[in-house]
């Protein structure tokens, strides 16, 4: 079975929101659009987004760390939002594990949003249907695109490559190796939703230097005798 997913490296994310704008641009004009806005140039602008970047401050000054946290649908392997849908508009694709909403079947009852512990679904205030990240299904499942472009818009936009995309069920994929080797974790594991998306934790890069590496034990100068000390004026001091 295939389960496509994102792996987001919190150690690399700089919180530039490029994934947010790229996602909005691609999806508002594509298959899953429009992602409507309300008062976009006014006070209190609001609208539908598939992807948000939040910022958290961890610790107490001066020992603080700023963590930028991109937040989009996790495409759970046990999605709690799917079985509660009364119409079957919400479904999980068999072939690649992406959780999608059929806008033509959705009645806008919002029950699926209640059933998502992460708050990843948003009701479109104009179209009155539930919207959520599609993992850019119209890119990743589009065979007419060159292979390198069959990735979600957010992944292609990320300037620091903080977002990896691939099949988390394939043990040899880039994402599986990143999860395995760099401590990838899931959000709210306590609910058994088995999110497919993983996050890579912040990692401290420390260089370990030993004393003998700073001062070379085999320094050839050390083996010579002390340099001769000054013993009065030499010929160089007096001649001009």
């Amino acid at each position, binding site marked *: 079975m295939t389960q496509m997913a994102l792996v987001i490296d919190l150690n690399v994310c700089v919180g530039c*929101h490029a994934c*947010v704008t790229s996602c909005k641009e691609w999806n508002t004009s594509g298959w899953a659009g429009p992602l409507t806005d309300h*008062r976009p140039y006014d006070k*209190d*602008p*609001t*609208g*539908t*987004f598939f992807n*948000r*970047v*939040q*910022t*958290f*401050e*961890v*610790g*107490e000054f001066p020992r603080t760390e700023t*963590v930028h*946290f991109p*937040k989009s649908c996790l495409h759970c392997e046990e999605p*709690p939002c799917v*079985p*509660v*849908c*009364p*119409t*079957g*508009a919400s479904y999980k694709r068999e072939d690649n594990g992406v959780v999608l909403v059929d806008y033509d*079947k*959705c*009645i*806008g*009852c*919002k*029950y699926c*949003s*209640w*059933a*998502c*512990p*992460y*708050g990843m*679904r*948003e*009701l479109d*205030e104009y*179209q*009155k*249907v539930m919207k959520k990240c599609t993992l850019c299904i119209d890119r990743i499942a589009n065979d007419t695109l060159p292979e390198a472009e069959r990735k979600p818009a957010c992944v292609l936009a990320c300037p620091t490559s903080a977002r990896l995309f691939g099949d988390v069920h394939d043990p040899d994929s880039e994402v599986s190796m990143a999860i395995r080797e760099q401590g990838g*974790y*899931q*959000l*709210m*594991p*306590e*609910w058994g939703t088995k999110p497919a998306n993983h*996050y890579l*934790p*912040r990692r401290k890069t420390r260089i370990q230097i030993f004393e003998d590496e700073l001062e070379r034990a085999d320094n050839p100068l050390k083996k010579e005798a002390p340099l001769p000390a000054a013993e009065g004026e030499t010929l160089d001091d007096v001649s001009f």
Partner: protein
Amino acid sequence: MHPAFSVIFLTTLIGVGQGLFLALVTGQVYSLANLLQPQDSIRFYAMGSALSLMFLVAGLLASFFHLGHPERAWRSAAKWRTSWLSREIIVLPLLMLFVALYGLVHYFGLTTPLFTIQGVISVDGSLILGVLGALAAFALYFCTAMIYASIKFIEEWHSPLTLINFTLFGLSSGFMLAAAFSAWSGVDLVGFYGTWAVIFTFAAGVSRWLSLRRNHNLVHKSTLQTAIGIRHNQIEQKSQGFMGGSFNTREFFHGASAGTVRLVYGFFLLAVFVLPVLLLGASYWLASPYLPVTAFVVQYLGLMAERWYFFVEAQHPQNLYYQSMA
């Protein structure tokens, strides 16, 4: 959670409709066992069923206001295998059908016994429909409550007490309405229905008190630490990713001040559990038809406040991601 008035009206109105129908069937069963005087088919049972149906229809109408696309509501019966909402949408019209048929059978006087059990209990069409309808009414209480109780991470709702509360509140308000209806139409069943209404109100008081206490002491499983996966005791949100709010901040936060919540809490305790019982008690001596009617109206208003509080009480774990705007 944000309390939507459409859902408050839906759950309280159909609760009353179901309870009233159960009260009518209870009355019929009691009179069958010669514990009560048999009542007039048309004036009592047919009119009572019509009243119950009115509440059910009003609840159904209210539910349409909750939907973004009410014209597609017919689709919602599709996933009855997995969704409690879908099951509710199937059982509600079924109950309405039974209530309508029950009323019609009484209205047209089709109550000649079809057969008798052991020569004592004469079973007619209305009794069969009544029992089937009663089963549907209990099934509907179960489905409605399970919509809330089945979401395991809204821990305030995820409890058998939610099922018990929905059922008992529906029964108490339904029997209260039956008492009011009896008093209004001059039927001598005010005492019978009033007693049951008080018993159900008392039972609902006990179970609601248990759930209030449970929710007060609840320790949520999810924390900001599990939500973003960072192990540190001190995490502060600096940005939500937007400035003007989103669906997440509108749907999952009630936005009411602590004072309003306390006021509604006090009001529903008084209006659901105390005032109706006092009003019904007073009607024993004053015998005024207005007192049971007032008791029902007061309890219904109280139940709307209770349902509002039920939503306000619930803390959705997604709120952890929307703690401060900074």
